[in-house]
C-alpha cells in the first residue's frame, strides 16, 4: 500500500505527460481529429436513437440524452478494458528497457479515456440545456458515481492486464464478455422499466456498470439520488478489486518481460 502510494507519486508526472502526449499524438495528424472525440459518440447515439427509438418505438423521455449518458460511461469502461488486456505487450519497447510499475500504463490510458468521457459529459450538459431539462443539486451526485465507476474500472483493468500477459487469446474472450455486458447494461433501454421485476433488481445490483449508468440518469434526468447503500457496496468491492489487482501486478510484473 505504501509502495503503491509512493510509486504513484513518483510516476504521476510521467503518467500525466504520457496521457497528454497520447492525446496530442491523436490530434497531431490533422487538426480536425479531436472533432471525432465528439462526433463518434454523437453519431453512435443517433444510430441507437434511430434503431431503438424510431424503428422499435422505444418510449423514453429525452431518449437522446438518455442514451448519451450511458454511452459516455460505457465507452470509457469499454475502451479501458479492451486496451488493458494488451497493454503490456503493446508497450514492449518500454517494459523491456526500464522498470516502471505496470499499472502506470493503465492509469495513463485511463486518463486519456476519462478525458474523452468528460468531453461527452460536457455535451450531455449542453443537451440538457437544449432540451430544457431542469436540474438541481442532485447533479452534484454524479461526482461520486463517476469516481466509483473509475475505481472499479481500474481494478478490472489491473487484473485483466495481468491475465492478458499470460493468456494469448484473452482479448477474444473479453470482446465477447464485453458485448454480452453491453446488452445487459441497458445502454438503449431502461432496465428498471423494460425488464420484469425481480430480474431488473438483480441486474441493477449485480452489474456495476448498469448501476452506475442508471444512477447517473436518475441524477441528471429525474433529480433522484442514487441508491447509496448499493453504491457503498460497490465502492468497497471496487476497492478490493483494485487492491488485489495492484498486488497481483506487483507480485508478477517482473516476470512479464520473460513472457512477451
Amino acid at each position: 500500500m505504501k509502495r503503491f502510494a509512493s510509486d504513484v507519486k513518483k510516476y504521476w508526472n510521467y503518467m500525466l505527460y504520457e496521457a497528454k502526449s497520447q492525446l496530442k499524438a491523436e490530434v497531431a495528424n490533422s487538426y480536425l481529429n479531436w472533432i471525432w472525440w465528439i462526433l463518434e459518440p454523437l453519431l453512435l447515439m443517433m444510430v441507437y436513437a434511430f434503431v431503438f427509438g424510431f424503428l422499435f418505438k422505444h418510449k423514453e423521455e429525452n431518449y437522446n440524452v438518455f442514451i448519451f449518458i450511458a454511452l459516455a460511461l460505457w465507452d470509457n469502461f469499454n475502451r479501458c478494458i479492451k486496451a488493458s488486456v494488451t497493454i503490456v505487450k503493446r508497450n514492449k519497447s518500454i517494459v523491456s528497457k526500464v522498470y516502471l510499475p505496470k499499472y502506470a500504463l493503465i492509469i495513463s490510458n485511463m486518463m486519456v479515456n476519462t478525458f474523452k468521457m468528460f468531453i461527452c459529459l460536457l455535451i450531455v450538459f449542453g443537451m440538457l440545456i437544449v432540451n430544457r431539462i431542469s436540474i438541481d443539486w442532485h447533479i452534484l451526485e454524479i461526482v461520486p458515481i463517476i469516481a466509483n465507476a473509475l475505481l472499479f474500472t481500474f481494478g478490472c483493468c489491473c487484473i485483466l492486464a495481468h491475465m492478458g500477459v499470460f493468456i494469448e487469446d484473452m482479448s477474444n474472450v473479453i470482446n465477447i464478455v464485453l458485448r454480452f455486458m453491453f446488452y445487459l447494461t441497458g445502454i438503449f433501454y431502461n432496465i428498471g422499466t423494460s425488464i420484469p421485476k425481480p430480474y431488473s433488481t438483480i441486474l441493477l445490483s449485480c452489474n456495476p456498470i448498469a448501476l452506475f449508468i442508471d444512477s447517473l440518469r436518475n441524477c441528471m434526468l429525474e433529480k433522484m439520488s442514487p441508491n447509496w447503500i448499493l453504491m457503498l457496496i460497490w465502492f468497497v468491492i471496487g476497492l478490493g478489486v483494485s487492491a488485489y489487482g495492484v498486488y497481483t501486478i506487483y507480485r508478477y510484473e517482473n516476470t512479464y518481460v520473460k513472457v512477451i
Partner: protein
Amino acid sequence: MSEVSITVQDVTIRYKSVKSYSIKRNLLRLKPVESKNFEAVKNVSFTVNKGEILGVIGKNGSGKSTLLRALANIFSADEGNIDLHGNSISLLAIGVGFKNQLTGRENIMLSGMLLGFREKEVLSHMDEIIEFSELGEFIDQPVRTYSSGMYSKLAFSVTAILETDIMLIDEVLSVGDEHFKKKSYAKMKELITNNDRTVVIVSHSLDTLEKLCNRVLWLNDGEIKEIGPSKEIIKKYREFMK
C-alpha cells in the same frame, strides 16, 4: 573506492513455466503443456565497488544481457539477491518510450521521465541535451520527420546527459555520422570513466573492454567462468574462443 555499490548473491534466473497460455490451445489439446526449464544465469555472485568499471564477456546466449536486465530490475531473480545499496540505476537504452508523432522536445521529456527523473530535472538538462544532439531547430519538429541518424542522435543524447549512479551498458554505443560517432564515443568514455560512477558493460568488443574496464566477468552458459583483472581474463577468453 572500497565502497560497494552492487552486491549480487547466488542469483539464478530461469526462463520456464512462464510460457504464455492460450485458452483455445488448451481446449483443443488434452495433453498438458510440458514446461521447459532453462536457466539463463546460474548461481552468480559478485560485487562491484563504487567507481569501478566491470566488463561482462561471454559467447552469445551465455546470459549476459539477462544478468544486466536483472540488475536493472526489469525482471527479478528467481533465486538469490541483488542489492544496489540505494543507488539509482539505468540500463542505457536508446529511445525508450519515443513517440513518432511528438516533437523532439516532448520526446526528451517523456523519455527522461520514464527513466525515473523528475520533470524539473529533465527541464534543467533540456538545453544541454538539445545542444549535444546537434538537432538545432528540428527539435520542435515531430520525430517521425527525422532521418534515422537524427533519431539516434537525439536518443543517445537523452541517455548520455541524464546520468545515474550506476550505468548498465549493453554494447558500447556510438551513433550517427563520423563526427557524431567520435563525439558520442568520447562522451561515453567520459561518462564511464567518471570516478563516482559504477558501470557494468556488456560487449563483444574486447579491445574496448580492455581499454575501459578495471575488471572483467566471464560468463559461460550462465555460470561465472572467471572474474578478475581485465587483461588477464580477456587473454584467457581469447584463447578459449579460438
